[in-house]
């Protein structure tokens, strides 16, 4: 028993672990909450692309002001919001299919980012840093930014719950109820953008989409109501953050990867054992409901 307590407590003597845990929990919660809409609206590719498209913004911030975290955050935020709105507009206005447009913008921006970073001396190290995150390097200032903007995202999702629900479930109803659908759609893109920036240091660009999609998809398999799905996704995201960081500490593997792998493990368990939508239990439930159909 003592051993287990030691295992849990030992890493906590380090300030960087405490800050890393706080960041992981916050990022897990925010990503999973926003991710609920990413999953329900089929926007995984958009999320992945947007995360990658931040790179040139980060690179410029890095070239201009060095490793200082504060300016990097704002550069990333500006790039993310502009790209999100740009993708939203392109998908609407052109004859090209939306995913093609996203693919082009995503690759262009990512290449631009790599080109910029490749001008620096410590090219490989810097790039790896942005791609895979560095949760143990989180400062108190970073935590404050994460908490502030993450809180704003959650607050917006809660405040506009019924509006986001309707534009996601039935856009025509949103239109006949005269909701400002286009404004709400853009706002959702901006929320995804902010979420990605807030999570940049914890999971990095390359694995961002996993944090957006995997906990929400896991919750989707386990619940049939949106508020529950959001709450459960947030819980799973936070748990994955904590467990992943411990795994990373004891096994010496990259923290972002560890967190994502824990998310994937949760998802796999849900796929196998979810009561209705799962492979094993779901089959049994479906067989039973076929025998006793509801009138």
């Amino acid at each position, binding site marked *: 028993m003592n051993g287990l307590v030691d295992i849990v407590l030992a890493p906590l003597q380090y300030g960087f672990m405490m800050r890393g845990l706080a960041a992981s929990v916050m990022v897990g919660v925010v990503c999973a909450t926003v991710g609920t809409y990413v999953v329900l609206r089929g926007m995984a590719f958009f999320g992945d692309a947007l995360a990658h498209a931040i790179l040139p913004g980060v690179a410029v911030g890095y070239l201009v002001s060095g490793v200082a975290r504060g300016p990097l955050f704002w550069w990333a935020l500006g790039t993310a919001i502009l790209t999100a709105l740009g993708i939203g507009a392109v998908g609407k206005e052109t004859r090209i299919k939306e995913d093609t447009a996203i693919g082009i913008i995503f690759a262009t921006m990512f290449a631009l980012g790599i080109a910029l970073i490749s001008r620096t001396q410590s090219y490989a190290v810097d790039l790896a840093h942005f791609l895979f995150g560095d949760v143990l390097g989180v400062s108190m200032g970073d935590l404050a930014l994460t908490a502030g903007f993450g809180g704003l995202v959650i607050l917006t999702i809660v405040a506009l719950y019924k509006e986001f*629900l*309707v534009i996601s479930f039935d856009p025509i109803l949103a*239109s*006949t*109820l*005269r*909701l400002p659908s286009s404004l709400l759609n853009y706002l959702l893109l901006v929320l995804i953008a902010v979420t990605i920036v807030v999570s940049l240091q914890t999971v990095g660009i390359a694995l961002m989409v996993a944090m957006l999609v995997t906990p929400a998809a896991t919750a989707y398999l386990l619940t*049939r*109501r*949106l508020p529950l799905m959001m709450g459960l996704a947030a819980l799973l995201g936070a748990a994955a953050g904590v467990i992943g960081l411990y795994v990373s500490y004891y096994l010496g593997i990259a923290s972002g990867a560890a967190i994502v792998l824990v998310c994937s493990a949760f998802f796999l368990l849900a796929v196998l054992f979810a009561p209705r939508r799962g492979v094993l239990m779901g089959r049994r439930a479906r067989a039973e409901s076929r025998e006793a159909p509801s009138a």
Partner: protein
Amino acid sequence: MSETRSPFGRRHATHIPDAPILEAVGVTARYNGRVALDNVSFRLTKGERVAVVGPNGAGKTTLFKVIAGVLAPTQGEVRVAGHGPRGHICIAYLPQRSEVDWNFPVTVADVVMMGRIGKMGLLRYPGRQDHALVRRCLDIVGLAELADRQIGELSGGQQQRMFIARALAQEAELMLMDEPLTGLDVGSQESIFHILDALREQRVTVMVATHDLNMAAARFDRVMLLNRRLFGFGPAAEVFAPDRLREAYGDNLRFVQSDDGLMVLTDTCCGGDRR
């Protein structure tokens, strides 16, 4: 002009008493680059029940979306109770069941509550009155016991009744039902007509897109024969004349001479539920 406030601070048009509930004047609409509606004009009186028939691609859904103010006509005008549709929140469009994500994590009551959102206002949550109204609407359509079911667990007829309950919760005065009868068994169709009869007493105007010409002739006040342009609008006996039907449907309709001399009409364009 007196108006009521909308949730987002815009204003909703009030109804002009003597204006027809729905009037289309020379409505032309393009959809994906081709003409989906060509110079369509008609007028509906309050409380009327109208069937809209025509082959697939006739523009029935487009017509409904233009009436609901979801699509803008390229020419012409739609007026609902005297104003353009975009000023109203009393128009309900009931989607085709094949267009709905039935795995979406919402319950039957959640979906019906969505009808209230236009009246609730920004940053507000449903109040006691909203919940009570949702329960009443579910009662009317006979789904009270299934209120907490996830929507995918409902049968086709129940799914359709859920959308009627949502339109009721919206306090809709004009309901546009997009193929509500397609793929339903006779019993489910009857229960929907039962609800529509009750709506008629409340003077709710209903337009129903359907492929069932017999049903259209038997159960509706007037029928509208549409294939991009209007081929007829009036009593079924008049509109469903073989020549007119042949003109509107082209090759999509077969005429069979049966033993007792009646024409049996077969709409060959679509088979049942497209899901």
